[in-house]
């Protein structure tokens, strides 16, 4: 009996000690009053979640390192308002459960100032509420889902990519003007990506205009049934809302079935270097493919942005292979630096979201950025590309439109040139 009593006493003491120590640490944590998480006089810490491994990592794993390389370039040039940017990159393997873990680690443990360019619709959807309730700016989400554009529900969340409906409308506009009378079919990913894109296509062509609609899931790499159905339906134009791996699969499968439609591909899955690498010897099948994009073409050596980014890539990214993902990552970095400058020297989370809401940013993008009080979507348009002679190049004008019933208009403002040292200055 005494032994039990002694044990009980020991346990009670342990609990009391734990609670007491808890009370102390609690005071320490809350006592910082007024300081901004992740910001010191010399440093700004931001974080991101990306699929660096796993099935979705092809291509995407290069985005965050490119952004980091651009920040290193900015840091070497004195940083932003005297502060260096530290970019914490966390791998979530495109698994929403992992995203929960790593984003919590970034926000609660590493105390980042903001989440920048978190990638993926299913992954990022799961952390929207968490970021909102912790008042963490959720900037430039790397996905074209319309979920990011809900200023009332998620005031701190902003998109980057043109949303998939805008993209669908622009691709369909090309069909309407340049390929009239052809039989149009549609293959989309079985989630918001494919669904939103189809909505855009049907807004321009009319609800009954798509002869055959098919979907795929990334866990099943056989698209022969879908492509076979297109062939049987006699499709002449196929619009693809696909990730790179499935663009390559669709094109390859069609060639095996001796089916040669005109391909129109979403910017998500239209990067020629990525596709050519996947198709290998069969890269010639991509000839004539029409894609969409809104950032400078990575092979356009005459473009001043590409010259800048190539230089940064050489100096700070170990001269990694340069493709559309590299350009994307650095464009995100450039926009973030612009926003930091606009937020002013006294950096707070409110100042940054306010600076994004003010809008008026111009950078490497061809289409306008639309940020305002009521619009949290990113780029509002795209320009079409075509593969000819094994190189991808822009043709025609840049288009812009909205996700509603608005018309698809030409965007005529010329692109701006980058500053001489590649670092934006406060205007």
């Amino acid at each position, binding site marked *: 009996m005494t032994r*039990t009593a002694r044990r009980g006493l020991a*346990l009670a003491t*342990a*609990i009391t000690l*734990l*609670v007491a*120590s*808890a*009370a102390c*640490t*609690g005071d320490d*944590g809350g006592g910082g009053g007024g300081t901004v998480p992740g910001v010191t006089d010399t440093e700004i810490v931001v974080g991101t979640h990306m699929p*660096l*491994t*796993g099935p979705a*990592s092809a291509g995407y*794993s*290069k985005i*965050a*390192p490119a952004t*980091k390389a651009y920040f290193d370039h900015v840091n070497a040039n004195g940083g932003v308002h005297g502060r260096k940017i530290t970019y914490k*990159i*966390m*791998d979530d*393997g*495109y*698994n*929403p*459960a*992992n995203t*929960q*873990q790593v984003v*919590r*680690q970034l926000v*609660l*443990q590493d105390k980042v100032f903001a989440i920048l360019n978190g990638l993926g*619709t*299913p992954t990022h*959807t*799961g952390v929207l*509420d*968490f970021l909102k*309730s912790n008042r963490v700016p959720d900037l430039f989400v790397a996905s074209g889902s319309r979920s990011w554009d809900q200023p009332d529900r998620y005031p701190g969340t902003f998109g980057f990519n043109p949303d998939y409906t805008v993209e669908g409308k622009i691709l369909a506009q090309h069909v309407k003007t340049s390929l009239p009378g052809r039989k149009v079919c549609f293959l989309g990913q*079985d*989630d*918001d990506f494919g669904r939103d894109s189809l909505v855009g296509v049907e807004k321009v062509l009319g609800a009954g205009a798509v002869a055959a609609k098919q979907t795929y*899931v*990334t*866990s*099943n790499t056989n698209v022969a049934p879908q492509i076979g159905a297109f062939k049987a339906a006699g499709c002449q134009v196929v619009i693809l809302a696909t990730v790179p791996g499935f663009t390559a699969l669709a094109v390859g499968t069609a060639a095996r079935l001796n089916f040669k439609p005109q391909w129109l591909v979403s910017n998500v899955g239209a990067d020629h270097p990525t596709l050519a690498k996947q198709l290998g010897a069969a890269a010639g099948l991509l000839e004539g493919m029409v894609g969409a994009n809104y950032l400078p073409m990575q092979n356009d050596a005459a473009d001043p942005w590409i010259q800048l980014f190539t230089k940064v890539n050489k100096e700070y990214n*170990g001269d*990694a292979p340069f493709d559309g993902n590299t350009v994307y990552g650095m464009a995100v970095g450039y926009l973030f630096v612009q926003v930091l400058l606009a937020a002013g020297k006294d950096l707070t989370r409110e100042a940054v979201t306010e600076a994004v809401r003010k809008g008026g940013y111009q950078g490497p993008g061809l289409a306008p950025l639309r940020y305002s009080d009521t619009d949290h979507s990113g780029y509002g348009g795209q320009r079409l590309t075509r593969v000819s002679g094994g190189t991808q190049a822009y043709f025609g004008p840049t288009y812009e439109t909205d996700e509603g019933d608005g018309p698809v208009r030409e965007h005529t403002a010329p692109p701006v040139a980058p500053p001489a040292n590649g670092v934006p200055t406060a205007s």
Partner: protein
Amino acid sequence: MSATRAVTPPDTKARVGRTGPAEPRLGSTLLRHLGLAVVAALLLVAASYGLEPFRNFQLATVAAYLCATAGLTVLTGLNGQLSLGHGALMATGAYTVALCQNAFADAGMTGGWLLPVSLGAAVLAALVVGAVVGVAAARLRGPYLAGVTLAVAVVVPALTVTFDGVFNGEQGLAVPVEPPPVALGAYFPYERWQLWVTAAATLLALLLLANLVRSRYGRTFRAVRDDEVAARLAGIHVARTQVLAFVVSAAGAGLGGALLAVLAQSVSPGAFSLTLSLFLLMAVVIGGLGSLAGAAWGAVLLVALPDLTHALTEQLTLSPAVAQRVEGNLPLAIFGLTLVVVMIAAPGGVQGLLSRLTRAVSARRAGRRRS
């Protein structure tokens, strides 16, 4: 038979072999377990105030995994049946909780009692699936059993894609969860609340499992594991016992999956892949197959390992791209290596090693006292 024997942890055999308890036990088993649960609950509440929010969340994740690993320990460690499909049973629980919470939200219902109802439904759903698989499993042995459970692990996530109208394909479903009760204060940390909810559910499940293990049913589980023929001769209905073990284990996994979905506020097939099923099995083997404490070590390992590898790769000076690659793949390699090392050095797992140590220490102390 031989395959059933193969998964028997040597450590428990040794313990079963010891005759009778070393000292007379105080009170009934139920009271003793209740006391332990209350102490654990007090410790957890204290810890939830002492730890930072992120650690609270990690502890909550450990609790969620613990439901599943404890279930698997009962099945594999105590009943000798192998399952490679417990990830799928977790998915069953997770999707049930998502569908229930969404249905409640659509109907405009709010209140603190909804989550327990959803969790209960999740356990029930996993129980039903477990009963079906269990009936098949009771007729199979060794590699054939592994094959069937492997098929479950592959098929269940695939169903979410086939019936995408209900399960929303690979994108999965959101799990709407109520914020902490207002009574706790406006600024009550959400992570602490999550820990409370998951820990309460887990402690309840562990209490039930611990009592089951010490009961008549637990003894029949072990009897069937150790020798089916002898068990049958002793009047035990072997198939019925095996189905029961599978059902109990499935309920644990279902609760674990449901809690994980509540923590992540989302559920998608990618979160319950075949890898998870394999990880669960590896975790309970490394933790120690023979006891529920081993399941706890396994659950801790599942959460701590990715964190440790992240810290490790941060220490190494690698180029960023290489570091990210390594970090993503390193946990798998380390898990595998740990398994090999543990199996060679401590076949009883972490818990087996610990109990051997404590036994050695107490024996020494007893020896000193006598002299």
